[in-house]
């Protein structure tokens, strides 16, 4: 099917077949995986990569935990919450280190800054990380949770509600819904990023099951390394990277949206602490900050340490 993109290139012999489940259907953020396969980066690391669409980070995390796929690409808050609940997985490297969580409004809506959200209605999705941490964002920008009306809606409903003016904005990932809304409405979208309010925590990264980590550390290492290279390469050649997704799935967003999405993603690949490092290099202080935020939001228990959630032995070091 369309989403299967096995790395057919490269030498045939010696490649380990690996399945990676994404957090969602393929969109711009995932360009590096396709680009990496096309460029032979994964093959160079001895990996024959199969990319599989996912349906939410929790499902991806649990699929990895159950051994139904080898690796997962999932949102860190969801991963950590699952680990808390006993799913036997660990993060092996977060790539989106600045949260893409943002309140997204139309540029012409009169909402210029977070303070303007007062009295507005914002579409949210119950239970996901951006929604759960929304009160902290409000707090950070000097508003109280009661100042904003939250309307819970499903993913498609959020966008439609915003386009039709029933809500003033929505909460989601800036590099995901934003470009789609802009493309559909023809209007510019303004992002009120959590990170701009000083609230940051990790987003998508690679996860592996405890057993894979124990049984085949070399494979994990190879995958993390290849992914890092692929992200670096894709960040350098955004157009080519997005082009690599062409034809992989007839339903992918149009290329302009994909490119927009990927370029938004590039901005998220590092924090102040990891500025200049290779993609996928995690700083312990960022991990600690993430744990603190998520514990405060109640997404995780707060009892665990970084080691509980993250196996640092695979991430690139430089």
């Amino acid at each position, binding site marked *: 099917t369309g989403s299967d993109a096995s790395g057919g290139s490269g030498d045939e012999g010696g490649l380990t077949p690996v399945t990676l489940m994404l957090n969602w259907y393929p969109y711009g953020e995932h360009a590096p995986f396709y680009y990496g396969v096309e460029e032979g980066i994964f093959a160079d690391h001895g990996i024959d990569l199969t990319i599989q669409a996912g349906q939410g980070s*929790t499902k991806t995390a*649990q699929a990895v935990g159950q051994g139904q796929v080898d690796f997962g690409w999932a949102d860190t808050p969801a991963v950590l*919450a*699952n680990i*808390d*609940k*006993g*799913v036997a997985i660990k993060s092996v490297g977060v790539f989106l280190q600045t949260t893409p969580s943002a309140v997204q409004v139309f540029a012409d809506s009169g909402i210029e800054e977070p303070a303007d959200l007062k009295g507005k209605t914002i579409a949210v*999705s*119950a*239970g*996901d990380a951006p*929604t*759960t941490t929304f009160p902290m964002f409000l707090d950070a920008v000097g508003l109280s949770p009661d100042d904003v009306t*939250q*309307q*819970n*809606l*499903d993913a*498609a*409903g959020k*966008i*439609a*509600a915003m386009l*039709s003016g*029933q809500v003033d904005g929505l909460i989601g990932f800036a590099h995901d819904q934003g470009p789609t809304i802009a493309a559909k409405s023809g209007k510019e979208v303004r992002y009120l990023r959590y990170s701009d309010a000083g609230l940051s925590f990790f987003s998508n990264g690679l996860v592996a099951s405890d057993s894979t980590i124990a049984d085949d550390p070399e494979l994990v290492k190879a995958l993390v390394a290849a992914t890092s290279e692929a992200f670096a390469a894709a960040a350098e050649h955004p157009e080519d990277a997005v082009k690599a997704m062409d034809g992989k799935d007839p339903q992918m967003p149009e290329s302009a949206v994909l490119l927009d999405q990927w370029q938004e993603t590039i901005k998220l690949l590092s924090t102040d602490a990891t500025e200049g490092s290779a993609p996928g290099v995690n700083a312990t202080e960022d991990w600690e900050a993430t744990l603190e935020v998520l514990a405060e939001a109640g*997404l995780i228990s707060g009892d665990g340490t970084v080691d509980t959630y993250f196996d640092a032995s695979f991430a690139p070091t430089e």
Partner: protein
Amino acid sequence: MSVQESATVSVAVHEARGPEPRRLRAWWVRNWHPIVFALAVLLVWWVATALNWVAPYIIPSPAATWAAFTDNAAYLAQQTWVTTYETVIGFLIAIVIGIAVAVVMVYSKGVEQTLYPVILFAQVIPKIAIAPLFVVWLGFGMAPKILVAVLMAFFPVAIAGLSGLRSVDPEILQLTSTMGAGKLKTFLKVRLPAALPELLSGLKVAATLAVTGAVVGEFVGANEGLGYVILQANGNLDTAMLFAALIIMSLLGVVLFAIIQIAERFLIPWHASRRDVRAVTVQA
């Protein structure tokens, strides 16, 4: 009840009155199956979670589920009320629309041919897929949830109603046609009662679908109701709460279903399916 026994429409019954323990025993003899079964399910559930056959993030322990109930009793009651309200209103509207559709289809071939594709379409599309439409058209109130409940529930009513209304003994219709009553009267006094047994079995299916419909409607966009509880529990990986909500939902369905079963007793006591209970010979 074997074929042979069930064929013996007139069965002998022993007088049920007697001293307390005897009545209790009689009650137990009649009802032990589901009770024993329910206890067995509870036991398996408890063992499976206690021995960690299934992880708690997949299935919570009975104790955790019970705690979710008690810790959130007031909250759950409030959400249950919302969903119940949507379900009942949706179900009632579905009954009216379903019967109306069945009636016009019985009386007009042209309408039947025209309506069939429409109601099929309405039935087949997954309501979650057209969620954005509901949000845009009906906003965030109860209306879209009720609409989803109606959309899910009216189809079985219409189909069973149609089939029931069609199954009326043609000779009875011939007879009543010589009595010169209008269509409405003939419908109310002949066709509808004759269709009731089948219609009621359609209502049973519809009742369960109305519950599902209301909850799915809440998935689409709601700040309250059991669907919201489920979504949030799913997001928080709070399986205990998830199970609590699912159990309440099921109970809601069971209650609606039971109401129709009881209604059957009053509405179609005459029907063949109930007859063996009634035509009994008395033991001397």
